[in-house]
Each structure stands twice: as C-alpha cells, then as structure tokens.
C-alpha cells in the first residue's frame, strides 16, 4: 500500500482488545443446559433451525465486535495515505528534508516553543516513509537533534525530550546554511528546508542580501502564532566609577518596551546579589528609557551585579536581567602615536589631548606619547587604548599587530589630519577602519563658516552624556576641515556634520572597538580644543573603547570568549577553571571558551586569581516584531531555488492540513460507530 502509514502506531496495541470479545465468547458461549421438562408438548417443533440461525447471528455479532475494536484501534493510530491522491503533505517522491526549529529565547514566550515542537512532530508523523528527514534546532548555532531515514514517527515521539530552548538570538542564515550542508549530503534530488519559528525581523538582520540556497533546495516557513505580548528588556548597562571617589559610581541602564502596550516597570539594581536600588518607570509602547542609579557603592576590587526589569505582564524573561562586572579602577594607559610632532609644543598634534588626559585632579588616564617609527618597540597589550593621531602611514606589520590587539579587546582611536595618506589607510586599514577614505577628499570650508556636529546618536555610550541638560553643547564647535569617508554601513556613524559628512564612526572587531574621528586632535582643523566639548568627548571616547573592553567585561550568550583577555595575562589553559552562573565548574579546553550558554556572572580562576565577566542575552532578540505572512512567503520564494515551489503556511494551517490528511480516522470512527449500532440492533434480536 503506497504511503499508507500511521501517526500513533502505539495505539495498535489496542488491537489486542479485539481478543476480548473472542475470549468472552469462548468462555460464555452457550452450551445448552439439559433440563428435564414436563410441558415439552408446548414447545415448537422446529427449534434446531432457529437455534442454528441464532448461533450464526451470534457469530456475526462476535465478528462485528471484533471488527469494531480493530477499526477503533486503527482510528486512534491515525492512519493516512502519504501519497498524492490523498493529499499527502510530503508528496509522492522520496526526498530529503530538514526541519529547523527555532530555539532562540524569544520562543519562550507563551507556549511558542511547545507549538513549534508539536508542528515538527506533526510533520514527522506525516512524512513519507521513504524520506530522509533531519531535525535541527537553531538560534545562534544549529544542532542536529535527529537524523532519520526510516523511523520518522519514532523520532517524533521523542522529539520533545531532544529539543531545548536556548538563551541565544535567532540567526536564520546560519541555520539555513547548516541545513543546506545536511541536504547536500543527501542523494535525493528533491530537497526542502522547513523552518518553524516566530520569524522575528531581528533574525534576518545578519542575512546577506545576495545569498541564495543552492539549486534544487527550497525553504518553507511555518510560523507559530505571534500574539501581541508585552516584553520589556534591559538592553544595556553602563557602569562608571566616579572620577574622584572610585568606590562610588554611576550605573546607567537602558530599558526598552518592545511591545505595543504601555508597560509599568520596576527597575531593580543588584550589586553582588544584594538589592541596592529601585526605580519605577512607565514605558510607552516602543519607548527606550535610560535609568540612572547615582552614587552606587562599588566597593571591592571586582564588582558584579545586574539590573532587572520587572513588569507584571512581561511574558519573556531572559532579557529582563542585564549582568555586568567592573574591575577596580586603574589608570587607563593610552599609547598615543603622534603623526605630527613639533618642537613648538603648541603646534604639536597631541598638545591639547595630552593636557586634557593627564589632568592630575582626575588621574584617570595615563597618556604615553610615541612616534610611528618607535611603535614597533611597544607591547600593545600593556595599553588599553592606542591612539593614532594624524599618522601619515603605517607599517603592514604594525597593522597586523593592531588587528590582533583589537580582536582581543584593545581599543583603537584613529584621529585624522593633514598628514594622513588615504591610499595607505585604504589599503592597510581595511579590516580595522569603519569607513573607506575618499581619495584626496579633504573637505575644506571657510574658517568663518565651518560645519558643526549636527547629528549624534545620543543613545550611544559616547554621546549619552551629552543628552543630559547642562552638558557641553556639541553645536558650539566649528570644524573647518575633515576627511570625507564612506561608511561601510550607515549604522557605524555615531556623529555627523551638518553637511552630511561623517564625524565619528565606530567598528567592533572581536572583543575590541575602533573609533574614527575624521577631523584633527589639535586646533588645526577645528576649534574644539578650546571648547568645553573637547575634554568630555575624548574622555567618553577613550572610556568607551577602553572601559568596556577591559573594565566592564560583557559578552553575549553563545559567543566565544578569549580567556587570556579576561585574565589579563597568558596563563596555560589547563590551569584555568570557570565557574558558571549555575554553580557548575568546567575546565576550558582552549583559550577560547565557547560554552557561554546561560546568561549571568562567570568566574574565571587561574593561579589563585579570579576574574569575573558578565554574559547577557542578545538584546536584538527582545524585539518580537515578526515578518508578516506575505513578507515570509516572498522571502521563501526569494531564498529558494527557482525550480522549487514553496508555499508558506502557519502552524495552525499546518495542523489543519495534517488533520485533513488524516481524515481517514474520522471515517474509521464513523464506521466503528455504525458497526456498534448494528451490533446493538442485531444483539437485541438475538436470543441467548
């Protein structure tokens, strides 16, 4: 029987119930009792035929009961024909399929993950027995949880135990590429990927717009129901020690309401698991709010804590806590490479910056000057920030060292000027710079006019300070000259001039950050050094590239972490121990620890020295906005190979389709009921 299969084959055990009427029949079958009777003359003469006919009726009754029970057992086993004629989901041809189940943390809300598992089970149970099916769960990484060639229904029964929601964010491209790799190993010509997900828009951000599935592979989307639920998340926390009293500090927490309803939220601050402070905020739909905790006691060499947003109706909890750590404040060592030194100190490129940074009252930073020629003698890892100020050209070896330095958490600030050779910069700094330098694109304007900083991302840590009233006005600074650059992505521009040119740009590489300032550090191209903006702006820039990479160690779930970077020195990995937030201890196998599977505070111990680092969920997963069904269908068609037909269906439609394909059980139940009604009718006309 082509494609005939059962959804719940365990119910076939019910067939044993068919033996019950047979046993009862054998036990209680009518053995005629012999009775001496006087009035036998009044009995009918032709009893044998009637008796025999009754026996036949009884056998028919027995048969009806047995058949009814067999049909009932089959009905509960949910039979269906997995072929085209009966509307089989998988089609008639055997094919290779990968079912991708989204296990990102956004699937935790409501019972979305359970729905996704149920949908996958439905797919597996209705699969063509000849198909090769693999099941994978995906978020930031993809993992094969079941790969079957024959017993897809067996896998369906155990699927619930194999799948688990992660704390990672969704990455559809990575998942589809993994599924594609699996499918390409299959000899089947018909290949299809089924993705069961809530299909958040954020999951598509990393999708390369030019990427397509290999020829012959299609993708089908099965969205789980997306209800409008409230979600409030802490998306970022910035911890800064007070300049004059390092045992106190300020904590800024960015809290966002990702839903379309108002959310009354309580923001709790915990330091070393002790509740320190509480703020209540009413968040409008979509609103982002920065909560400030001032004069927070930050005692001890290392401080750890978390900010927790508690909203009564919040259905997604992983993004409610944001963990942070802070090492004891030490002077931030800055290596400044002077590209235009001058004996006249006033004309020196670093004249203003050196005085701004080495303020004895603050004593927060320690700036050490050098020249490009002497740079090779410096150990970059001794500095937390390297600043290239109007450096003409850079040696290739230096660039390679800088790449390694930044990837491992170092901070790099590129400040430009008239000495910069844009061709060299473009050829060597491609992997470091957030923008491409336009050839001979010195933008020069009249000194009287100048341009001003017009657009700034006030949510960014560098500019957040200036969002508060009473701070320096960025608009007071005039820029007469800057190098015009083309940003690699619009998002990397943190500030731009009023003529549209980019002023400050950012690029994150590995654990480190690069900031590009397109004008000069001295007053040659702007009047900033003599304005109140100069000192706080460069403090913020230095603190941003330095503090977050070293003092405040924060990582995302699922991302690898460089352990030497955490501990601050090269210690053999075998001497390291990591204590997870759950309390379990693990021994890392390499310098890169990849098992950041849970958010919380991790403790890395090596040679009796402990360092803490925080791991948080990716805040982009907090935005639950999903692609519309039409967009999904369009995307499926766009990504799939042109020769594959795709049809996007949602979870409820899938259930409906599968239910329709299993109509056979309804008919079986109906037939069984008819049999039992017939049995009752015949039973009432049968003498025992």
């Amino acid at each position, binding site marked *: 029987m082509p494609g005939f299969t059962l959804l719940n084959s365990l119910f076939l055990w019910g067939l044993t119930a068919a033996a019950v009427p047979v046993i009862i029949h054998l036990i209680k079958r009518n053995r005629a009792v012999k009775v001496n009777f006087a009035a036998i003359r009044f009995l009918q003469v032709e*009893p044998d035929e009637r008796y025999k006919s009754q026996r036949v009726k009884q056998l028919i009754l027995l048969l009806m009961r047995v058949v009814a029970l067999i049909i009932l057992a089959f009905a509960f086993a949910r039979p269906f024909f997995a072929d085209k004629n009966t509307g089989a989901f998988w089609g008639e041809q055997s094919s290779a399929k990968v079912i991708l189940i989204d296990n990102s943390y956004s699937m935790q809300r409501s019972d979305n993950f359970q729905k996704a598992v149920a949908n996958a089970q439905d797919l597996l149970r209705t699969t063509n027995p000849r198909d090769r099916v693999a099941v994978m769960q995906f978020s930031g990484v993809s993992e094969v949880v079941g790969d079957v060639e024959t017993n897809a229904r067996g896998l369906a029964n155990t699927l619930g135990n194999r799948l688990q929601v992660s704390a990672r964010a969704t990455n559809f491209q990575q998942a589809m590429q993994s599924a594609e790799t699996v499918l390409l190993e299959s000899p089947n010509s018909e290949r299809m990927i089924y993705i069961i997900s809530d299909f958040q828009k954020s999951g598509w951000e990393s999708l390369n717009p030019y990427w397509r599935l290999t020829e012959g592979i299609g993708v089908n989307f099965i969205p789980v129901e997306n209800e409008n639920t409230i979600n409030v998340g802490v998306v970022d926390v910035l911890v800064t020690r007070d300049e004059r009293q390092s045992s106190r500090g300020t904590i800024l927490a960015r809290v966002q309401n990702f839903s379309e309803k108002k959310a009354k939220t309580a923001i709790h601050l915990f330091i070393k698991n002790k509740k320190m402070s509480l703020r209540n905020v009413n968040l409008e739909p979509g609103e982002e709010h920065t909560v400030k905790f001032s004069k927070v006691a930050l005692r001890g060499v290392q401080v750890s804590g978390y900010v927790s947003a508690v909203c009564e109706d919040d259905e997604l909890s992983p993004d409610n806590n944001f963990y942070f750590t802070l090492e004891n404040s030490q002077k931030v060592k800055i290596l400044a490479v002077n590209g235009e030194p001058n004996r006249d100190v006033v004309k020196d490129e670093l004249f203003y910056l050196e005085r701004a940074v080495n303020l004895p009252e603050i004593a927060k930073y320690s700036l050490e000057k050098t020249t490009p020629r002497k740079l090779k003698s410096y150990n970059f890892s001794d500095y937390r920030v390297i600043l290239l100020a109007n450096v003409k050209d850079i040696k290739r070896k230096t660039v390679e060292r800088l790449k390694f330095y930044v990837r491992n958490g170092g901070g790099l600030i590129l400040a430009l000027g008239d000495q910069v050779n844009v061709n060299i910069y473009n050829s060597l700094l491609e992997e470091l710079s957030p923008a491409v330098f336009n050839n001979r694109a010195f933008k020069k304007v009249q000194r009287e006019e100048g341009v001003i900083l017009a657009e700034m991302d006030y949510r960014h840590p560098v500019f957040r300070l200036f969002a508060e009233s009473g701070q320096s006005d960025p608009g007071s600074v005039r820029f007469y000259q800057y190098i015009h650059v083309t940003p690699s992505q619009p998002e990397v521009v943190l500030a731009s001039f009023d003529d549209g040119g980019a002023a400050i740009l950012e690029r994150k590489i590995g654990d480190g950050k690069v900031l590009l300032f397109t004008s000069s550090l001295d007053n040659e191209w702007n009047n900033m050094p003599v304005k109140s903006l100069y000192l706080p702006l460069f403090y913020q820039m230095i603190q941003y590239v330095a503090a977050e990479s070293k003092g405040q160690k924060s990582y995302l779930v699922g991302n690898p972490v460089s352990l030497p970077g955490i501990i601050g020195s090269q210690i053999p990995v075998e001497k390291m121990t990591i204590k997870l937030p759950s309390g379990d201890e693990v021994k890392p196998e390499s310098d890169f620890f990849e098992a950041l599977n849970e958010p919380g505070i991790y403790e890395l111990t090596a040679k009796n020295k402990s360092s803490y680092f925080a791991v948080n969920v990716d805040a982009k997963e907090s935005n639950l906005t999903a692609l519309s069904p039409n967009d999904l269908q369009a995307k499926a068609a766009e990504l799939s190979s042109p020769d594959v037909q795709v049809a996007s269906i949602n979870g409820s439609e899938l259930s409906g389709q599968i239910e329709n394909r299993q109509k056979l059980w309804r008919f079986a139940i109906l037939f069984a009921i008819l049999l039992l009604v017939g049995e009752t009718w015949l039973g009432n006309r049968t003498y025992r």
Partner: protein
Amino acid sequence: MANTLRFLDPKILSKISGMDLRARTVVEGFIYGLHHSPYRGFSVEFAEYREYTAGDDIRHIDWKVFARSDRYYIKEFEEETNLSCHILLDTSASMGYKSNDISKLEYGSYLAASLGYLIFQQRDGVGLMTFDNEVRQFIPARNRRGHMLSIFRSLENIEPDSSTELSLPLHQIAETVNRKGLIIVISDLLDDPETVIRGLQHIRFRGHDLIVFHVLDSAELTFPFKNATKFVDMEGSSEMLTIPTMMRDKYMERMNAHIEKFKIGCGQLQADYHVLDTSKPLDFALFSYLTHRSRKG
C-alpha cells in the same frame, strides 16, 4: 394468621416429616385462620339439645348437662353427612417435575392429604386413587378410624412413574364408584384436553360432583428459561434443543390455550376447575373445596 398460614407454604410442609402431621398442620392452621375469615360456619357444627327418647343412641347423651340438670339430653348436630369423596392423584412422571423445592407430585400429595384430613374431620368418607396411564392404587372412601392413616401412608410412598393418560383412569373411577359423591382430581393434566374432558364428563354423567385441581410448576406457568436449553421429555425420550427466549411467547400462548380448554370444558361440565402453582400456599385449594361444599349445601 400470618404465622398460621406459614404452615400452608409447600416449602415449609416439605420439611415436616409424616404425611399425617403435614395434613393436620395444614388443616388446623387453615381452620384457625378461618375464625377470622368469611368462611366461618361451613364446618360441622353443634345445632341444639333434644330430650332423650327411647331408641336414641346413648352415646349422644350429654352427660355434663345431665349432671347439672339431672335430665337426659341428646346433643344434635346441624348436619350429619354421608358424603363420600375420592381424591384422584396423578402420579405420572411429569408430576415429578420441579423447578424449586417441591415437585408437582409432592404438592399434589400435600394437597390430597390436607383435603382428605379436612373431609375426614367433617366425618365424610375419603378415598384415594393414584394413577398414571392406569390406576396404580385405589383406597375406597371410608370414614373410620385408621382409614386416614392408610391414605397418608399411601401418599408417602408414591413415586412418579410412567406417562400420563388421564382418560383411562377417569373412566375407570367413573365405573368403579357407584355411590354418588365428590371426585377431586389432582393432576398436571398434560394430556390431550378433549380426551381428559371426556373422562371428566363420564364422571359427571355418573352423578359425581367434580373438582379439578390443575397442578403446575411455576416454571411451567411462566417459562423463565433464558439460555440455550436442551429440554428432555420426562415422559419419553424425546429431546428438544432450543433458545427459550425465542420460544417463550409461543409456549405461553399454547399453555394458556391448554388451560383455557380445561377451564371451558370444566365450566361446561359444571365442575370446579382451579390452576394451582406449586410455589403458592395450599390454602387456595382448601378454600376452593369449602366453597364448593357450601355451594352444594
């Protein structure tokens, strides 16, 4: 009364040993019950005193009255009967059938004994004839001491045997008993109604009064069988395999028609006809007898 009537229950009677004791238990319990019943006064009763005249039997002088009045008085009774009653008891094999504690024959025996004792107490003559397809035993009607004992003994020893053929013994009794009297037939009447009625007709033709007690087991009257049953004829070797629930309606129809034929036949002969259920007490049969006697004066 309830306690007294309890002894009329055939099941209890079957536990009492000795037919004479059974009969006495039934009749005395029944008579005791009659003191509270509308049938009071049908028995032989004292009527009046009459002064002794020559020729009177001195046995009838009431010596207590003489002691008080110093005069001889004769005690006179309302009626002196000389009725002779023959009880005909069917002892065929079919009478041996029982679905509960007692068989039709046992029930018939108790009834015969009780009726005989009652009749004897009324100073009437009682006789007994047992029969199946022929007369097995015949005790003529008498009213003397010791006669009842022989009837009781005879009733105690009877066993069901052979097939029923009622007409022959009925004709025989009609020919045998010359003196007009009362004939009581106790039988399950499992024979051809026409031939039986012809026998009864013969008895009536000879001037006898006739009471027919049609004794049937409750299972014969209600046919309560359910499961497939192989019925074996008690008076033959025939067997019948059948499903009773299927046959019940037809059986009941035939049984009722059979009873109806006897009822009509007996009615035409002006004979009393009563169907007795062996699970029911014996008082109904005794009432029937006394009603018959009162009607005949």
